[in-house]
């Protein structure tokens, strides 16, 4: 949907500010009651969903110039969706996340986006990854694992490593654990190796919808050619892309995050943890696996009114409010590891606080992105846990990169814990 398609919705936002807080029923302290990193850091109303509705209204009516400040209002949104969950506690006819995405796309179409994103786009065009790393090195992480190369062979399951796991050497052990689990479970799978491409989800969250669609269509075509019916990934961003965004373009694959796969293997008795890992941990729900990890539901309907002025949809419109995200599976895994004790943070599951890496903020607004990560690290530290566990390479990297010298909190991918327990 384009920004102009939100004209009615803009008039229906009540500016109640629920989008700035976690669902109020869950507030346990003043310290961790807020949910939107963007307004937490910048403080002006305009940096919240309610403000972005108003800024969008002014843009649609040509009442504001597209200044650097307006660009920042749009692009400092992490696209984490926390506002969406809180808004929908009370509303059934607003989509603040979708509206903000449309706002970003509107600005992108007008050439208004941070310089840093131009570099990412150039990298993508040249090397099919946002880091600008050589596409010929994409499969290096798995070179010795003798996995099927689905650019040449066929398999029903593709393991998509994603840009971060493919190129960040610090993460290669993590991603190798994921494929070893699949190997041990005798799954018939392969990887796209050097032919793997960025999923596009990150640039989608920055508003570059056209570029995303090109990548998504290319990925879909390559997988179809390889006979793929199922996608497994360890990247939360990729998961969101494949689960929610790709079906809008006609993709029809089963999609699993590796935590779902491991949980399934544990339940079937095909995987057992044998080693004790005596750690007190807290778990960070990645936005794209949690509230944005809900499955896509096709809908082709229209708005109508009932009882004069009640705004409803016919047929019933799918409701994305975070409740069908992936929350229990990683917790089941942690509970299955001998010695691991889970201490929950206050903001968890559908109202988890973002790590700060989303929406292009890490690249475009690094100081802000790191501030957000430190906010979350503090929340983790306040639980008394020794380790912050997550299930997303972007979260892990942003947390690790934002730590200060004196910080003692370890940051681990859940796969690293799994590896220790096997």
């Amino acid at each position, binding site marked *: 949907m384009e920004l102009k398609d939100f004209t009615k919705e803009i008039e229906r936002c009540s500016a109640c500010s629920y989008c700035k807080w976690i669902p109020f029923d869950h507030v*346990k302290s003043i310290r961790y009651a807020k949910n939107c990193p963007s307004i937490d850091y910048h403080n002006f109303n305009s940096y919240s969903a309610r403000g972005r509705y108003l800024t969008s209204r002014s843009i649609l009516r040509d009442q504001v110039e597209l200044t650097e400040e307006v660009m920042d*209002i749009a692009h400092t949104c992490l696209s984490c969706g926390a506002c969406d969950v809180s808004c929908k506690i009370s509303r059934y006819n607003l989509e603040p996340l979708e509206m903000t995405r449309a706002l970003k796309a509107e600005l992108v179409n007008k050439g208004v986006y941070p310089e840093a994103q131009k570099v990412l786009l150039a990298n993508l065009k040249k090397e099919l990854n946002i880091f600008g790393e050589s596409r010929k090195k994409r499969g290096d992480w798995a070179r010795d694992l003798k996995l099927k190369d689905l650019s040449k062979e066929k398999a029903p399951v593709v393991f998509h490593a994603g840009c971060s796991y493919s190129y960040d050497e610090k993460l290669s052990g993590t991603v190798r654990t994921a494929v070893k689990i699949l190997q041990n479970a005798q799954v018939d799978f392969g990887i796209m190796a050097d032919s793997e491409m960025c999923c596009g989800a990150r640039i989608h969250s920055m508003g570059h919808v056209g570029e995303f669609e090109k990548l998504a269509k290319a990925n879909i075509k390559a997988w179809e050619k390889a006979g793929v019916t199922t996608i497994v990934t360890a990247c939360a961003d990729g998961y969101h892309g494949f689960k929610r965004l790709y079906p809008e373009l006609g993709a029809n694959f089963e999609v699993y995050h590796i935590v779902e796969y491991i949980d399934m293997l544990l339940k079937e008795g095909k995987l057992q943890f044998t080693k004790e890992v005596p750690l007190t941990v807290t778990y960070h729900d990645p936005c794209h696996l949690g509230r944005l990890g809900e499955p896509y539901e096709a809908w082709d309907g229209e708005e109508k009114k009932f009882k004069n002025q009640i705004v409803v949809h016919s*047929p019933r419109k799918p409701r994305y409010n975070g409740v069908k995200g992936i929350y229990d599976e990683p917790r089941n895994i942690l509970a299955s590891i001998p010695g691991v004790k889970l201490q929950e943070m206050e903001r968890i599951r559908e109202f988890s606080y973002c790590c700060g890496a989303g929406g292009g903020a890490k690249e475009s607004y690094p100081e802000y992105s790191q501030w957000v990560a430190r906010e979350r690290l503090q929340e983790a530290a306040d639980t008394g846990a020794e380790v912050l566990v997550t299930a997303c390479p972007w979260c892990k990297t942003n947390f690790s990169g934002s730590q200060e010298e004196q910080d003692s909190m370890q940051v681990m991918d859940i796969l690293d814990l799994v590896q220790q327990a096997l």
Partner: protein
Amino acid sequence: MSLTDKQYKELQSIVGKRNISRDPGVLDGYRYNLSHTAIHLGPHFDVLTPRPAAVLLPGSTEDVQAVVKFCNKHKIRFKPSSTFWSAQGYPNDNETIVLDMRRMDRILEIDAKNMIAIVEPGVIGATLQAETMKKGLNCHIQGSGCSCSILAGATAWLGSGPGNLYGGWQYENLLGVEWVLPTGEILKTGSLGNDDSAWFCGEGPGPSMRGVLRGMFGTKGSLGVFTKCAVKLHAWPGPQSLPVYGKAPAYTTKLPSNFRAYTLGFPDWKAWAQTAHLMWDNGIGYTAHRQFNFLGRDLKWGMIQILTDPDKTISDLEELIQEPGFKEANDSMKIDFQLIIAGMTQRDFDWQEETLNEILKITGGYIVECMETDTLRNYTLLYLLRLGHKALNLVYGGGYDGNFGMINSIDFGAQRAEAAGAFKREWEKKGQIVDAGGDCMMGPIGGQGGGGTGLWENFTCFDSADRESTEGTLAFFDASFEYTKEEGWSGCGFEKLNAMARGYDGYETPREIRDAGHRNAPQPDVFRFQNKVYQSVNPLDLGDTYYERLED
């Protein structure tokens, strides 16, 4: 007149570069869309409040004082707002600078022994409640819900809400106040005026200013800036944190056996009012509110099912109200209210519950059966204790406001509820407002001092994106005003109470209109007195027309 570059830099040097903006893209986040809900103004389609000259985010009392002194020096109006819930928190001209008090959001102290909390403007009901519960206490949360500023509820508006029964109105809880006067001087009121650490009393020893500073309806951000205040806290016989279960939005709680929520139904309004009187006479109940009826007499059972089932959406309402058994269940709570009993001990709870049962025997009231599931009882408990679903007011089409405001004895409202509902039902037939069954009356069972009065409003919902609906709603409000005036009801004009401050264009109303309105009030001398207060503390007229005064 907009700020000169020199003036802007002067302000920038006070609050810091990060905490000031005059970029139109930022300023438009400080405009209020009058199409959807203006809170007692009447909706105006396609009208926004004026774009302010600048917005500032002060971080301390010193910042605020310096900004106010700057405003005095340059004769520039300022408008502070904490949580921006309604149109009255926004400026009504383009020359005003907005003070967004968001950064001043600390709870400075919770004095459990003396049952006092000292807060800054940005502290909201949810956060103060969460912190006070840890100490076995609770705060009053005003009817605008737990997203709103505690300080604003106590100083700037009425502060009535479901918690009136235990907490009175919020202004009754107001103790010491740190007040940056419109001149830039700082006045500490109540006991605080005598001793910098004594927040315990709003009326002294020290300047007894509570009534003066608030006036009749509160200052509505027009009489300087309140930078800190103390509020009275109340007993909380529950856990240190509200346990929450379930999936969004159908969150529920489960509290110990000294808590229970009830939906009470009645055969007629006389029984309804008698029950309220007997509750007060016997001192039972923690929170009492006619809550879910805001969804409409004809629709509420359907909406309750939607709100308590995460798999349902509002698009299911059409089918739900056709289901077998719907009418019977809905009719069983036609005349109703919700009650929470919280026993200070189990014995106290048992006694209160037994007393309630005796009262119901006398009045003919009953506990509504369809609401007697664990899920619905626990949903009601959480809903009313935290008051975190206030934005449901807007669930139907994005617009709502309340009319037939009856701040009076509970019998007054009860005797007029059917007539008010019938009047509204006729307007619902015209098609511009939601056809919800006429009676959408909601409000607390208990007012000032915890009992004796009620504050009712009949919710009117509409589609704020639809010109016809919005304008039809305004016409209904005008008709309501005429109807209540003809009938001689109190609360006349409640739906457009703030229309004397702001006109149809979003800007301030001319003085002659304001004066005419206040002159026609039942007690115009109140507003003459408020004018004297205004002139004495605000000689340069740096506030706005929301502070109600009669200038003749």
